């Protein structure tokens, strides 16, 4: 579904991605783990077209999307929930959801999708007229995921959904991610620092270090791998 070949991205003269290869198949949950500053967020921003790569290729369902603008990529069904949630603070919960459906015109279906995300996260329904900036961290993460679902993702990119949240909320969010993957058949590409949880949720994993992919395997094998255990699982 998503195929990344020899991707290189720079910030000015600094090379953040040094030729990475990643493949995400339809229906899978694939995770990318790594320490702070490894280039995980850059990888997602390059895929979404916010930070265009200098070389390499990004294929979405076989179509080359390298160098395309974000507003061309979103309608193709590749949707990102960025790091730090990035809720529009002065828009209400409902308006934030509307923004997720910005490029859609099927108003009736949009309404049904709003009902669907309110079923997933009932708290958002209670807060629908509240400004996004007033929500708690966990509620904001729920809103961020819901806003992404409003765009009808075929593949969902999640950047550090566990960041700064209480463990019980993190579990709740990961359960929902699995549910979306199973019920909606949405492919998920999950970037996480919380390696333990990520590897237990996903099917396949990549390990990233300073702009390079150093390991790629099934999550089962990665959980058993000595290096991964030492460096990322604290064992």
């Amino acid at each position, binding site marked *: 579904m998503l195929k990344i070949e020899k991707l290189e991205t720079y910030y000015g003269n600094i090379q953040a991605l040094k030729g990475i290869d990643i493949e995400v198949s339809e229906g899978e949950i694939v995770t990318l783990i790594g320490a702070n500053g490894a280039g995980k967020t850059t990888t997602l921003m390059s895929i979404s077209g916010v930070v265009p790569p200098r070389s390499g290729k990004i294929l979405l369902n076989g179509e080359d999307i390298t160098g395309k603008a974000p507003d061309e990529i979103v309608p193709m069904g590749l949707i990102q929930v960025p790091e730090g949630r*990035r809720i529009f603070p002065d828009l209400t919960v409902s308006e934030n959801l509307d923004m997720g459906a910005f490029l859609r015109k099927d108003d009736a279906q949009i309404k049904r999708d709003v009902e669907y995300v309110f079923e997933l996260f009932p708290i958002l329904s209670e807060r629908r007229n509240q400004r996004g900036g007033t929500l708690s961290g966990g509620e904001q993460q729920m809103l961020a995921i819901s806003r992404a679902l409003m765009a009808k993702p075929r593949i969902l990119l999640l950047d550090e959904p566990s960041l700064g949240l209480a463990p019980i909320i993190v579990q709740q969010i990961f359960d929902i991610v699995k549910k979306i993957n199973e019920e909606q058949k949405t492919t998920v590409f999950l970037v996480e620092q919380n390696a333990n949880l990520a590897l237990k949720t996903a099917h396949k994993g990549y390990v990233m270090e300073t702009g390079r992919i150093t390991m790629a395997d099934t999550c089962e094998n990665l959980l058993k791998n000595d290096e991964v255990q030492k460096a990322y699982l604290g064992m």
Partner: protein
Amino acid sequence: MNSTYFIELFLGGLTRGSIYALIALGYTMVYGIIQLINFAHGEIYMIGAFTALIVSGALAFTGLDPVLIFLIAAVVAVVWSASYGITMEKIAYKPLRKAPRLSALISAIGMSMFLQNYVLLAQTSDFQPFPELIPDLAFLDPVSNIMNTTQFIILVTTAVVMILFTLLIRYTRIGKAMRATAQDKIMAQLVGINVNRVIMFTFLIGSSTAAIGGVLISSHVGQINFYIGFIAGIKAFVAAVLGGIGSIPGAVLGSFVLGLTESFGTGYISSDYEDVFAFAFLIIILIFRPSGLLGKPTKKKV
């Protein structure tokens, strides 16, 4: 204290405030979206005034109804100024989008000087009379000592523009896109908003309202030259800062506060200090509310 004089000054202040508000909208919107003080914005207002002058001059011999001529001149001025605004963004600011903010600011000052001098060369530095096209409205006769026809038109037009503008920002698709972009540019891209188009539209709207202000004030004052945009631009900028730069209601509030301060200051104290009142008031407000009347305190990253 004479109450008629007070009302006259009050209405005078509202009139000034209206014009400032029409210009300040552009400053505050552009700042809200791309964090740039567009110093050439006052020049757009001036170009709007000149365009209306030229069009109405050209139409004067057609024998059309003066009111119709005024309306045509105003529409052409708005369209022409909007195209100036968009072009300005394309050539002076867009290439500097990723450059340090100071570079774009200097580019804005350069743009301002260029447009002023270009109109100076084309139109000379003399004040040009602006034709009186709007006939006196009969129902204003009883109150003509405190409010004349052009003042009335300025107030009504500004009110209508403000209402339309509010509806546009609140309820339309592009209005929502503008608000989202102002709040978080990267997230706006991630939901599929074409940020370049939003920025272009922001310049279009800001230039249009400034041009409306330019046409209105010209028909009120009756004369224009290449320099009117500079001082009006600075005042409207003051108004936008006073209200909290980036905030749309703030810009409107700041404009009326500034207009009234100037009007009462010149009316009760001395007209020699007109500009002093504006800037003294700005300084006082900023001492107590550094981010303006309705501005948000700047967030510190921790």
